[in-house]
């Protein structure tokens, strides 16, 4: 569904990604793991069109989407749930969610989708009229994911969903991610610091180190790989 080839991304003089290549097949959950500054978020931003790559190619559903702006990709079913949640703090929960469906003109489908995400995250349904900035960190993360789902994506790029969230909430968020993948066939590219948890729910994984992919394998194989265990799983 997503395929990137020899992707190089630079911020000014600093190269963040060096010719990386990776593939996410339809219906898969794929995890990118790696330390701080490895280029995980940059990869997602490049795919969703938030930053322009210096060179390389990004394919989405078989077509070249290199340099296509983010708002056009959302319309094609690629949704990015950015790191640090980035909810619209001065808008209500309801408005945040409706903004997620900004490109959807059919009111009935918006209502259906709203119902769906609110059953997915019942905590949010108690707070629809509350300003998003007043939610707890975990609730904001749920909101960010729910908002990303409002555009009815076929492929979801999920950046650090567990960041700064109580372990119990992380568990419930990850359960919902798996459920989305199983029931809706949603393809997910996940970036996660908590590599253990991420590999547990993923089909495959890539290991990024200072802008290069150093390893890729099935999730189970990565989990039992001694190098990965030492570097990222804290074994």
């Amino acid at each position, binding site marked *: 569904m997503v395929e990137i080839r020899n992707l190089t991304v630079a911020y000014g003089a600093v190269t963040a990604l060096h010719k990386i290549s990776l593939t996410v097949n339809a219906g898969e959950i794929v995890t990118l793991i790696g330390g701080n500054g490895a280029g995980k978020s940059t990869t997602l931003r490049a795919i*969703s069109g*938030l930053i322009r790559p210096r060179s390389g190619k990004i394919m989405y559903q078989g077509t070249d989407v290199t340099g296509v*702006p*983010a*708002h056009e990709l*959302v*319309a094609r079913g690629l*949704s*990015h*749930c*950015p790191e640090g949640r*980035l*909810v*619209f*703090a*001065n*808008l*209500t929960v*309801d*408005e945040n969610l*409706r*903004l*997620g469906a*900004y*490109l959807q003109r059919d009111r009935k489908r918006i209502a259906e989708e709203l119902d769906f995400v609110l059953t997915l995250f019942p905590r949010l349904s108690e707070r629809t*009229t509350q300003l998003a900035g007043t939610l707890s960190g975990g609730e904001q993360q749920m909101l960010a994911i729910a*908002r*990303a789902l409002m*555009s009815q994506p076929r492929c979801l790029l999920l950046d650090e969903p567990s960041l700064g969230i109580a372990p119990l909430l992380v568990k419930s968020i990850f359960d919902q991610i798996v459920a989305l993948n199983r029931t809706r066939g949603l393809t997910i590219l996940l970036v996660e610091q908590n590599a253990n948890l991420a590999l547990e729910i993923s089909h495959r994984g890539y290991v990024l180190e200072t802008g290069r992919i150093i390893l890729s394998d099935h999730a189970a194989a990565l989990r039992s790989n001694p190098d990965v265990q030492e570097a990222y799983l804290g074994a």
Partner: protein
Amino acid sequence: MLPRSQIVLLISLITAGIISASSSRIDDYILDVILGIGINIILAVSLNLINGFTGQFSLGHAGFMAVGAYAAGTLTTGPGKVWFDASGASPALLFPFVLFAGGLTAAVVGLAVGAPSLRLKGDYLAIVTLGFGEIIKVILQNIEWLGGSRGMVGIPSYTSFFWCFGAAAVTIYAAWALVNSTLGRGFLAVADDEIAAEAMGLNTTRYKIIAFVTGAFFAGIAGGLYAHLKGYISPAGFDFNKSIEIVVMVILGGMGRHVGVVIAVVLLTVLSEKLRDFGDKRMIVYSALLILLMLTRPQGLFTWKPARKAITG
């Protein structure tokens, strides 16, 4: 049945008409100040659309006002006068079209200025609009058939209470309706978090440009009203200080609030009139008051209520 907001607009327009009909009984000086308030309301409310609701920072509002003033003045006084007279229609009837033309010209210039600079994120807009304000001034100073630095004189005084406050009411209504629409939610999202807005599928550049051009349009209308109120315009009257004055009104009223901004405009306009007694020391008192206000109420003077109603459905 009309929606409530449109009824309010209609009542405002009728009230403006009634007051206008009896405006000859109002003292000339007082009327001049009142009409000045109306023009400032248009300027501040339209700038609020850009600086308050969409979270951009424009410092060039006086520039758009100048464009509108000169465009409108050209039609009634400058080279356009031939056409204006030849049309044979009553000036009072043509005046709204003149104002509209001024607004449209300002909007076109706004598009030319905004389109390249709004593609960038960050403070570029402030720098570009600051430069734009100065450039417009210099350009106008050097166009001989517009009066150069002497300015344009003998502009007929078509600006009545009705046109002034009618336009102000329309501006407030338009800004209100815009902010409470789907489009307006886009503005608010861009103000809140541009990256997230983009990730949600919003073409953020487009929203910023729409807000900016709309703001410029109404600044142009205000310019036309100003020209036909004072009867005289010169490039120096639309300098950086004028832009700052409008920015101060928006900040003081509370960014992204309509009512607060209107109150701030009234207060500041009256204040600056009252301070005339202090002569040259006026600006010192004015700025001291501003500093004091910013220290004690940085969120704006009039922010006791939520910025807007929540949108549902």
